[in-house]
């Protein structure tokens, strides 16, 4: 006689289980209660033993395969005649077994049939029922969206609005489009595509590298003058000169003096990898989210070249035409929050780089120069660094190196070839 041992629900409400390991094979003789398999359910990995003895004729599948609860796990050929094993079934009421059965009554099917005009059973809190009465809403007509069909306040609002809309709809059909959408308590936007990538990258960075951010104010009065003057000279050309090319120059100069900032951390080998090339990532906001195009060999490019390349990359970012190689390989990243982006920030490192520089709005501010208070053009900068690799003191030095160029941009002349 063949006995089909069906996979039981071994953990309260399971639907399936994965076969982790077979302890028996086809053709093997098994004894009662002998372990036959290890299975993994949603809750635990458990050992299953056979309720009958005999020869295994079939197994449900190979290791790694999934068996549904109620489907045969193994089939055993029982040599001896055995009493059928009574399977456990949750003890539900078996009406026919009632020992209390008393004299039979006439069939009363009517009890089970819905009574006409019978009040629908509504689940709702007393406060909701009260509000419904106040609003003149028959609560049994409201479709509940709460747990188990519970009517909640929002359902009343929706019902009232729909009722109002229905009342005016025939007359005002054409106006409908101009009516602002009803205010909802919340709206759900799926995270996917670029947003998802950004989310993943930020999480990886924020939870891997211990972030420390230093901030400083830089006197860029001279830089403002120089840029204004250069812009005049560039009039008539297509070049749009921002402050960013100067910042890039200041950064690559500082990176050369402080090689630890142009690096990545190789977690696999536990080594700091110093990069000998200077590819600067520029965090660029687009409608869909942040992208970071890369200016390769930024240290070898002139201010003019940087300005042209920046314009090109920004344009491509907005048109989503950046090539993969234009988005990869940065060794250090700059994020410019622009005129309206606040004075300081705590940028998140473009992992696996080890630092990121935030450059912020330029404001005219009173500052102390010598013994006098004067008005200067001041810019806020923020430097976030990976404290596994970089300590506070070198970070301070790096920031001053950047600030020094921004404060005295004429230094850049020294590097011109």
């Amino acid at each position, binding site marked *: 006689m063949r006995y089909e041992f069906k996979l*039981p629900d*071994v953990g309260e409400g399971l639907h399936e289980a994965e076969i982790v390991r077979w302890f028996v094979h086809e053709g093997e003789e098994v004894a009662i209660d002998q372990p036959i398999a290890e299975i993994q359910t949603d*809750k635990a990995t458990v050992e299953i*033993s056979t309720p009958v003895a005999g020869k295994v004729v079939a197994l449900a599948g190979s290791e790694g395969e999934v068996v549904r609860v109620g489907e045969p796990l193994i089939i055993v050929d029982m040599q001896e005649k055995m009493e059928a094993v*009574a399977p456990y079934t949750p003890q539900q009421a078996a009406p026919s*077994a009632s020992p209390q059965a008393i004299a039979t009554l006439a069939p*009363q*099917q009517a009890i089970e049939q819905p009574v006409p005009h019978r009040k629908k059973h509504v689940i709702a809190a007393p406060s909701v029922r009260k509000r419904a009465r106040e609003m003149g809403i028959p609560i049994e007509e409201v479709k509940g969206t709460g747990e188990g069909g519970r009517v909640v306040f929002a359902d009343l609002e929706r019902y009232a609005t729909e009722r109002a809309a229905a009342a005016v709809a025939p007359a005002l059909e054409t106006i409908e489009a101009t009516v602002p959408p009803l205010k909802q308590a919340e709206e759900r936007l799926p995270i996917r595509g670029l947003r998802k990538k950004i989310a993943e990258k930020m999480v990886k960075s924020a939870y891997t590298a211990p972030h420390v951010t230093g901030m400083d104010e830089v006197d860029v009065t001279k830089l403002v003058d120089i840029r204004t003057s250069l812009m005049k000279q560039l009039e008539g050309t297509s070049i749009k000169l921002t402050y960013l090319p100067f910042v890039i120059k200041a950064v690559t100069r500082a990176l050369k003096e402080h090689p630890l900032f142009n690096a990545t951390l190789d977690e696999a080998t536990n080594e700091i990898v110093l990069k000998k090339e200077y590819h600067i990532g520029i965090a660029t906001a687009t409608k869909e989210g942040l992208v970071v195009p890369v200016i390769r060999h930024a240290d070898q490019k002139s201010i003019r070249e940087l300005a042209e390349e920046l314009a090109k990359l920004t344009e491509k970012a907005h048109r989503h035409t950046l090539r993969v190689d234009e988005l990869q390989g940065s060794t250090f990243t700059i994020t410019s929050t622009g005129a309206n982006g606040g004075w300081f920030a705590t940028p998140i490192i473009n992992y696996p780089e080890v630092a990121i520089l935030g450059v912020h709005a330029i404001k005219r501010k009173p500052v102390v120069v010598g013994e006098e208070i004067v008005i200067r053009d001041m810019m806020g900068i923020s430097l976030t660094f990976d404290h596994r690799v970089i300590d506070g003191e070198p970070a301070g030095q790096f920031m001053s190196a950047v600030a020094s160029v921004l404060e005295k941009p004429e230094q850049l002349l020294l590097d011109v070839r």
Partner: protein
Amino acid sequence: MIDQNELRIEMVQLLDENGNGEEETLQSFSDDLLLTLYQWMRKARVIDERLLKMQRQGRIGTYAPFSGQEAAQIGSVLALDKEDWLFPSYREIAACLAHGMPLTQIFHYVRGHVLGGKTPDGLNIFPIQIIIGAQTLHATGCAWATKLKGERHVSVCYFGDGATSEGDFHEALNFAAVYQVPVIFFCQNNHYAISVPIQKQTASRTIAQKALAYGMKGVLVDGNDVLAVYKTTKEAVQMAREGKGPVLIEALTYRLGPHTTSDDPTKYRSEEEVERWKRTKDPLHRLRKLLEKRNIWTDAQEEAWVAQVNDEVTKAYEEAASVEAPSLADIFRYVYDEPSPLLYEQQQEVIRRNRVKEGK
């Protein structure tokens, strides 16, 4: 200020992990008593292992294994009189059996049959409690009734470490101490309330010391030493019976298996920890050592005993499985001796509806 670190709390232990102890103390245990204790523990272990397997075969419902806690349960129950009242939780299958509950009823219980909650007449065992700690109140109430009626029975309430964080525990112990009722609160501290370790359960160094706050006696006992559990419980029960008030016993033990068949203990405790308890602290192991030293138990006897228990389990299962499933109307039958009018009315309604469904 009082500091719990000033308390001197010693754990009662008569038999160490290798089956050694003070000769004089051990001699006070007769061979017969030792054999009874051991046979019950061995029997309980076999039954527990069979039940776990049967759950994995789909033959019984969710089950809470007790392997590892046999000494705490068997040692305490065998220290009682037959008429003493038992208030078990779902893990006290061994205690229930040793106090006289038939194995078939255990099967009814684990198969979800309504008869599982119906203790046979003449047995003083309350229905197995699922609500954590609720039975502490039932036990206190029963002990109070015993006192008022002038009976000499003691109520013994079983619960775990997790239950001591429940409000019921506080109310039950406080009331019991104030009214000096004959109740024993027997806490099996098995180190985990499902996944919550004892360190997160209470800042008290021991559960036993909580007795002091209620003005009752407390004692900490090695819950894997069946002799210590037996002797401690015997003394506590004696005191309670003599009207000297309730006692809180903390039996330090360890659950070797999962909390229930739906639990995965590897998620909250290490394999090494479980192995350590299995290898060095198994309650059966140390008593077996003692029996061997006295030459009163052999491998052959053990084998025969295990086979006999296995037969018992198979027979009890078959008997229970052959009992017809209960009807909905049956669920009203066993709570009260005489049903209350409301219950009666509900039962009649169920019977009427059944008839309608069957078209009679």
